[in-house]
């Protein structure tokens, strides 16, 4: 790619549950060189492992893989837009095979699809990663509860897959910004150790990885921060140059907004020290970035840079940690809060009667203090309606079930004017606790498999 060429990279998803329509719009009208999908949260891999154990028919990749790919493949293949996606979860080869099937269904032949694996290190993690970062304990303390461990790989294996001719690359666990960095490294030929450019590219990836969070999503606050047509948000498009400068934009005619404010908010999202944002590829420095609005929904970001990468990769370890039982019921009208408070007292006493064995119990008043908890101002006004929301964390599912059973009792054995949802939804769920550690980067080897439609 020539020095003056601008690379156009679009976002296709910011998480597993994200909307599909903006991805299709980016594929059709974004004039993209690359479309990148981020679909994994911290506990995604462990949750997938648990599901795969119980349900042999679960293929182990993004449950929306078909929806997302069907929405974008025709336009992407017609226009020559390459796709980079972490929808492979615990089975990137399976995801690649499925994409090949979908391409064939669409009559699109000869497309190369690569699967990038190697991030799963469950069988080796206890010896490779001695210490849990959050509590300083040995990882051996997780031996009996460990479900899955995966290292966060960087952009290099994706670059290699692109170099080997892949038009679609689907991965397991890869750091979110790396999905967007990889096309820049490949197209501009950036050296993986050029920490200034890799820092810039990773910073751009960070701005892109949360999709609509930079185009007016997770932003509107009516009367203070208004967003036009927030029902019609687009996912962002990065126009990147070979030096690592970027202009953020979106498809014309869509709602939302890209402003200095939306870009700033996303720049520090999930960041701790803004001068040291650690990724597998580099340590990003956001503190010298300059943000310059160029016009409506066009913002230029320059000055993103970085410092040399660390010798280690982060590892996430998912562990079984028991169950959560939860349910809620409702009050409204004069005296609603008083009735809710009495209901709370009744539940606390009944949990003693049924000997609920819980690590933690929480009874909140939704409408008053369920969201901000102890940070709720003591003088907050009394609500007209209030939901009593009950949750307990227990070792066994049998104990967790008691929460819903006692909420059932509130229907006829509680206080006056109690509203309740019947039939109720599933009221227990398994807890997968996530812990972190570090492994030497040399201990994690990516492997790449190629498939052709």
């Amino acid at each position, binding site marked *: 790619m020539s020095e003056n060429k601008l690379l156009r990279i679009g976002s296709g998803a910011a998480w597993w549950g994200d909307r599909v329509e903006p991805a299709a719009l980016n594929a059709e009208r974004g004039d993209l060189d690359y479309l990148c999908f981020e679909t994994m949260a911290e506990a995604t891999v462990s949750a997938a492992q648990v599901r795969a154990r119980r349900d042999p028919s679960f293929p182990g990749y993004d449950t929306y893989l078909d929806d997302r790919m069907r929405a974008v493949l025709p336009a992407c293949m017609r226009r020559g837009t390459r796709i980079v996606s972490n929808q492979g979860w615990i089975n990137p080869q399976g995801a690649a095979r499925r994409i090949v099937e979908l391409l064939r269904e669409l009559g699109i032949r000869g497309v190369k699809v690569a699967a990038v694996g190697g991030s799963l290190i469950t069988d080796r993690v206890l010896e490779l990663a001695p210490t849990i970062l959050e509590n300083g304990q040995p990882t051996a303390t997780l031996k009996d509860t460990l479900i899955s461990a995966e290292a966060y790989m960087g952009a290099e294996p994706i670059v290699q897959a692109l170099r080997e001719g892949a038009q679609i690359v689907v991965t397991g666990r890869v750091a979110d910004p790396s999905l967007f960095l990889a096309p820049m490294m490949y197209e501009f030929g950036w050296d993986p150790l050029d920490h200034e450019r890799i820092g810039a590219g990773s910073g751009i990836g960070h701005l892109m990885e949360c999709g609509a969070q930079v185009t007016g999503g997770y932003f509107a606050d009516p009367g203070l921060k208004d967003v036009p047509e927030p029902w019609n948000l687009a996912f962002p498009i990065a126009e990147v140059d070979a030096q690592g400068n970027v202009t953020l934009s979106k498809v014309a005619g869509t709602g939302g907004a890209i402003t200095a404010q939306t870009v700033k908010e996303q720049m520090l999202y*999930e960041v701790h020290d803004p001068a040291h944002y650690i990724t597998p590829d580099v340590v990003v420095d956001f503190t010298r970035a300059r943000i310059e609005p160029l016009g409506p929904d066009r913002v230029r970001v320059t000055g993103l840079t970085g410092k040399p990468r660390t010798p280690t990769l982060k590892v996430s370890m998912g562990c079984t940690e028991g169950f959560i039982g939860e349910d809620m019921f409702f009050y409204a009208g004069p005296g609603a809060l008083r009735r809710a408070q009495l209901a709370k007292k009744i539940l606390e006493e009944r949990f003693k009667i049924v000997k609920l064995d819980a690590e933690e119990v929480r009874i909140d008043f939704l409408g008053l203090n369920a969201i901000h908890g102890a940070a709720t101002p003591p003088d907050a006004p009394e609500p007209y309606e209030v939901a009593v929301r009950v949750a307990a964390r227990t070792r066994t599912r049998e104990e967790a079930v008691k929460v819903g059973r006692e909420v059932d009792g509130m229907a006829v054995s509680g206080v006056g004017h109690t509203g309740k949802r019947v039939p109720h939804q599933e009221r227990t769920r398994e807890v997968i606790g996530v812990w972190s550690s570090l492994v030497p980067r040399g201990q994690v080897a990516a492997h790449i498999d190629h498939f052709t439609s």
Partner: protein
Amino acid sequence: MKARLEQVAHTRSGDKGNTSNIAVFAYEPALYPLLKEQLTAERFKAFHREAITGEVLRYEAENLHALNFVAHGALGGGVSRSLSLDNYGKALSAAILGFTLDVPDELAPLLRERRSA
């Protein structure tokens, strides 16, 4: 005069395990020194009472006219094991908007007022 933080700055929260980062961005560069001076890590933690159980660190990003608060123990034990309805703490960044600041009268024209619909 007194002002609420929402008149001076906008905020966004993000999660990592049991740690929430809440970034606070001055609407106007001229208001940023007020934030630096008055919204200390200590006051930030005290404002949230027992909702933050661990240490609060404050980072300054001058280029963004921003303070980034890293609040340990703010997510009920961690996103996956929290009993909170908002287990990612995505609504947490609204709490601090009620923090009260002293604003010199000459800066009052820079304050935002929530417009009615």
